């Protein structure tokens, strides 16, 4: 594979000025989106994904319900303006269906679906911008959205891509790098260090696999800290608001001409 761009220059910097093991900046927005039960927007560098979660709720298609657990339904839409070349992908695009199936199977063992028999959990993924590492961004955003929806999970799922340029491993690839180097995506559950997803679309030398895999698992732990901090912050804010409102005496018992139905 010959390329015009230099993936890693002599000074050890990548095309966007990062070092080998440097991840792109992550921003997380967990604010409420419309009527969704949970939602999260995550930005990995220039890749931006919005996920909304509805449910667990009554299944739309009764034939698809399972009597002992909930069904995870993942639907993905890619904005036409998200890539360099503007083009519209249909919902039935093979690539999109494959990604959604991958995300569904990643979360199948993590979500405690047995608590919600005959229900359905809808996960809607909107890709707003893409610049590499799309699948990890979707997985991380889905984790956060499920947490904000109050869906019980065994653990976070933290995903990252890794690639190898000649013999040097790289983390969190951009589109430029994804096109050039063999890469894989790894999703880990940080507490047990179990891996829920490993996927490769390119061929990677077997001797490089172990090093890269371990590195990606380690990076998952770093991303976990970032995601945990965001969830904690939201929880503190919301619990604080509830506590302030339910403390007796904050709203003093002034002349209460509000009467409760019972007392009339």
């Amino acid at each position, binding site marked *: 594979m010959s390329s015009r761009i230099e993936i890693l220059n002599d000074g050890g910097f990548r095309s*966007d*000025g*990062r070092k080998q*093991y440097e*991840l*792109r*900046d992550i*921003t997380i*927005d967990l604010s*409420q989106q419309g009527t969704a039960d*949970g939602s999260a927007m995550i*930005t990995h*560098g220039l890749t931006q994904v919005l996920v909304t979660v509805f*449910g*667990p*709720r*009554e299944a739309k298609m009764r034939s698809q319900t399972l009597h002992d657990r909930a069904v995870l339904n993942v639907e993905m839409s890619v904005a036409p303006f998200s890539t360099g070349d503007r083009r519209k992908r249909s919902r039935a695009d093979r690539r999109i269906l494959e990604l959604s199936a991958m995300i569904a199977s990643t979360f199948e063992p993590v979500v*405690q679906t047995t608590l919600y*028999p*005959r*229900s359905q959990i809808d996960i809607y993924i909107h890709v707003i911008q893409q610049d590499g590492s799309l699948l990890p961004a979707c997985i991380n955003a889905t984790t956060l959205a499920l*947490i904000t929806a*109050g*869906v*019980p*999970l*065994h*653990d*976070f799922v933290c995903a990252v891509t890794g690639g190898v340029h000649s013999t040097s491993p790289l983390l969190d690839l951009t589109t430029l790098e994804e096109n050039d180097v063999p890469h894989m995506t790894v999703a880990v*559950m940080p*507490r047990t260090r179990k891996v829920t997803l490993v996927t490769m679309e390119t061929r990677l030398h077997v001797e490089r696999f172990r090093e890269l895999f371990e*590195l990606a698992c380690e990076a998952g732990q*770093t991303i976990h*800290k*970032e995601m945990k*901090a*965001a969830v*904690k*912050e*939201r*929880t503190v*804010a*919301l*619990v*604080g*608001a*509830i*506590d*302030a*409102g*339910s403390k007796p005496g*904050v*709203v003093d*018992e002034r002349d209460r001409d*509000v*009467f*409760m*139905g*019972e007392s*009339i």
Partner: protein
Amino acid sequence: MICFASFPATSDASGSYGTTRHHPDVEDDVRMDLDEDDFEEGVQRLTVPGESITSSHAFMRGHGTYVDDEEVIASVAGTVERVNKLITVRAVRSRYNPEVGDLVVGRITEVQPRRWKVDANSRQDAVLMLSSVNLPGGVQRRKLESDELQMRTFFEEGDLLVAEVQAFFADGAMSLHTRSLRYGKLRNGQLVTVPPILIRRLKSHFVSLPCGVDLILGLNGYIWVSKHVKQSDQEGEEGFDAEAVYSNKNDEIDDATRAAIARVSNIIKVLASHFVPLTDAVLLEAYEWAVDQENSVKDLLADETGENLVASIGLGIRP
């Protein structure tokens, strides 16, 4: 070894969390194992999924937790609560978890043989059996075949109703009943939806505000805001009037009442978006503030007005 590149700072939301940031190595988790005295009075512990709470030898696991490798681990983000040896985690926001005796507001989604399906913001649609509604012509009477044939004259798809949780089915679906004069079909108002956690159990969930507006605070987060109906009218002469109870026609509502209903609805929406728990006292204070501002009803929904409203009652999410 692994760190973040601070490039590019596209969104100003990046400053909204983690004001103090440490080097990842410094920030290592302080894993706490709970002892008896760690659950001090008034000290709230927050947790996130996958965080170990305590050992499973000394404690029992409740909702929002699971046991793995002899540890009780949280499965939702929220507050840790303990009752004696039982540890539960209450999610900060989730769907409605029904309990027997709860008052809920729901919407009919389907008419099935001898039952209605009701959407009540829960994990499954609730079931309202024909045998658990008040049938016309006497409060207590057995259902007949003719009743089964004319179920749509009582409740149709899309109708709103207020009911009580009666029991649960084996799969966790709830069964409702409307065998009370206070329960039944809803009219003369509008529905507002809020997160269920904002509605606390009260002595009564039927609230009358002095501005001529009645509220039904369903524990499932559905709130019915309607014109005030006098208690005597509600009950009818015989105690039960099928015509009135299952009527689909709204009464005459004058403009002032319409404005009041819309104002109360908007206030509820604003308070809910700032995550303020709803009580009658808070609503009343907010209503007075809104009237004092002399804004039109729709202006309440503007972000700025909403923030002023919440600030005026001194609640809400603090930045």
